[in-house]
């Protein structure tokens, strides 16, 4: 027997067991999605405040009031922390990983359903702790999402006391949550694959989620150690990061970035996974270079552990480390180039259908290319010396994170919404959502590249009082207007999402005619997912196979007539 049924015998009854403390991976995935959406409101709201302040400094922000330097620092801290740890991770890993991994490998649930529920509730606790930190005396953490020391090491430097401690606790709980989740992903992907599902027949998303899980599991440890050291410095009088008492502030940066860099790939890989699932379906062509993508993913995962000090080129670290880390950083662009080129090659001579999932996937690909290329300037120590700490960096990482989180994430939503909710979303509203978002996003961050090249440093609450930056101010205005457009542009999606959930056209099992196993079950799936365990005979991207009955052949189809073993 190779599928593990959830440990409960029948479908649980009672509102709490079914919808709140559920151990069903599909419910838990939706819980992650909801939590990340709520946190995204806070994260997005903070970006509104930040952008307004930068465009029209010292003005009173509509709906909020004026912001001083301390509030600004807290805002950028919360924006970064929330977006990376409480939106990107829960959305790309918690939601899509949980929903799709069991379905895609042919299992009825994750390997450890109760651990799965615990991982969600731990994240919920972490989010609560973070929100509480907004209201404690001294306010929330204000030392950046990177929490550099000595700024973060002594309350007297930021004026923030318990806010910073709670921030450490919230992040630590988030780590615990994803450690639990990551173990679940790995064991499910390794052990619960149904018969015939070899590793090289796994859908790309599963490879990406598993690699992300491994990378996270192995990289988070040093930062856990560092977080404990930071907390002890703040509350127990230790001196890990205090040079005057035998400590070393640079140690924090090493510990943070040893995790911090792999972390951004933990976020990026699942986003790619979603794009890689969508593209073949909407070109009706096999994915180009499946094996190369797998090997590149593993290579990228491994390399991600030896590039971290490119965040520290100007930190005062030993300059002799600059060359080795520049070299490794340039090296890591290779596997990512392979992956993006494979996506482009997958488009070549395909029957491209620009439905909304595909628009978002392509939009993500296009914008990520800009992000990747600009990373090369930052990965080389020589050019980074000029650009570190400027808006060029800000634009670069938004051009990598935003494509995978936003464009990749929405590609996933539009693609799998029919499976999750049994209804189709409105395509017209989806296209409006895409075009406003795509144009507005570029409108925010292209100007910021220019601002950064003009030398303007980041993390400063207003720049208009500096003569040399005055000419750059109009760029900030353009960015802010675009940012507001971007936020407003989410309304079509919100309307579409909730309306379609109740009134959308009913979806069949496989509205996109896709091959992977989740499309062989009902929309939404029955309980258990697979009344009969599926048997896989083929690769996941057999589209337009010459001589086949249709332009798609499901993974569990016995032959090219597309007849499934367990019946249609």
């Amino acid at each position, binding site marked *: 027997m190779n599928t593990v049924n959830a440990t409960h015998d029948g479908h649980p009854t009672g509102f709490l067991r079914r919808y709140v403390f559920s151990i069903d991976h599909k419910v838990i995935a939706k819980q992650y999605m909801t939590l990340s959406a709520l946190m995204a409101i806070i994260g997005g709201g903070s970006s509104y405040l930040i952008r307004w302040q930068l465009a029209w400094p010292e003005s009173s922000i509509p709906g909020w009031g004026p912001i001083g330097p301390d509030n600004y620092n807290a805002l950028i801290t919360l924006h970064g922390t929330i977006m990376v740890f409480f939106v990107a991770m829960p959305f790309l890993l918690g939601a899509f990983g949980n929903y799709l991994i069991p379905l895609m490998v042919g299992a009825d649930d994750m390997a450890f359903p109760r651990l799965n529920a615990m991982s969600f509730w731990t994240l919920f606790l972490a989010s609560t702790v973070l929100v509480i930190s907004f209201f404690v005396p001294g306010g929330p953490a204000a030392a950046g999402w990177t929490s550099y020391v000595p700024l973060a090491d002594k309350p007297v430097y930021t004026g923030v006391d318990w806010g910073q401690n709670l921030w450490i606790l919230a992040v630590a709980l988030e780590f615990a949550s994803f450690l639990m989740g990551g173990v679940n992903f790995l064991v499910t992907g390794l052990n619960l694959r149904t018969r015939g599902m070899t590793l090289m027949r796994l859908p790309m998303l599963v490879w990406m989620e598993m690699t992300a899980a491994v990378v996270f599991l192995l990289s988070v440890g*040093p930062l856990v150690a560092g977080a404990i050291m930071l907390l002890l410095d703040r509350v127990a009088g230790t001196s890990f990061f205090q040079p005057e008492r035998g400590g070393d502030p640079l140690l924090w940066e090493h510990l943070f970035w040893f995790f911090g860099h792999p972390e951004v790939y933990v976020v990026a890989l699942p986003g790619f996974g979603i794009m890689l699932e969508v593209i073949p379906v909407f070109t009706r062509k096999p994915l180009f270079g499946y094996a190369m993508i797998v090997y590149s993913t593993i290579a990228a995962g491994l390399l991600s552990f030896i590039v971290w000090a490119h965040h520290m080129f100007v930190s005062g670290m030993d300059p002799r480390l600059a060359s080795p880390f520049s070299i490794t950083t340039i090296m890591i662009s290779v596997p990512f180039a392979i992956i993006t080129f494979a996506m482009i090659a997958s488009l070549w001579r395909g029957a491209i259908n620009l439905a909304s999932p595909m628009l978002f996937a392509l939009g993500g690909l296009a914008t990520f290319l800009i992000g990747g290329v600009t990373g090369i300037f930052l990965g080389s120590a020589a050019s980074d010396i000029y650009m570190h700490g400027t808006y060029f960096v800000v634009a670069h990482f938004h051009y990598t994170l935003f494509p995978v989180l936003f464009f990749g994430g929405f590609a996933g939503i539009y693609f799998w919404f029919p499976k999750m909710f049994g209804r189709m979303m409105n395509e017209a509203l989806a296209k409006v959502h895409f075009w406003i978002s795509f144009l507005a996003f570029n409108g925010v961050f292209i100007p910021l590249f220019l601002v950064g090249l003009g030398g303007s440093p980041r993390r400063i609450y207003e720049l208009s009082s500096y003569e040399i930056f005055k000419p750059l101010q109009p760029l900030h205005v353009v960015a802010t207007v675009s940012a507001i457009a971007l936020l407003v542009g989410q309304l079509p999606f919100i309307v579409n999402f909730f309306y379609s959930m109740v009134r959308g056209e009913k979806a069949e099992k496989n509205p996109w005619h896709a091959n992977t196993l989740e499309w062989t079950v009902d929309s939404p799936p029955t309980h258990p997912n697979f009344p009969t365990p599926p048997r896989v005979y083929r690769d996941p991207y057999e589209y337009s196979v010459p001589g086949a009955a249709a332009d798609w052949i499901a993974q569990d189809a016995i032959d090219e007539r597309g007849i499934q073993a367990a019946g249609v």
Partner: protein
Amino acid sequence: MSAGVDVRRGAIAADQDSIHQIAPGKIAIWWFLASEIMVFGALIGVYVLFSFAHGGFAAEGEHVQWRLGAFNTLVLVTSSLTMIMALASARKRNLQQTRMFLLATVLLGFVFLGVKGFEYTTEIREGFTPATGIFWSFYFGMTGLHGLHVIGGIAVNLVLLVAALSSKPWDLLERRIEFAGLYWHFVDVVWIFLFPLLYLT
């Protein structure tokens, strides 16, 4: 329609690949231990580097009580023995022995904590606190984190002991003892490194 390509060319005839043979719970515990290796390894690695930078912490470390530390090492190593013996007894389906060895492991865990608590108390009374300097920061930090892990391990072992006392099904109990044992042995291994680093150098 063409006669078709042999679509079974990719199908697996035999049973699944060897990875499927490993119990899910075991892989899970090892992945968890891998991340714990990173946590303690980072702390230990950083401590070693600081020690080199400092020319060793011989002076600062003079006041650690190495005899108590050595005794605690003996305690923990013995508890590893009793833990693995509990597993061996479970494999032989000997309920009485399983209970006995689990109880011994729990008790030895408490002894370890007791000695550690005594150490902390005397050290703080003599004026050596986490704030005393970088060596003591590491001492309290690392042994404290380790101690928290010991507490966690004792809790798990207690749960198993209770399960053994009420005769849970053997398969489940044996598996859980094995997994808890892996964790407990790991806690022992960490101490095997902490002891010489903090107490003997």
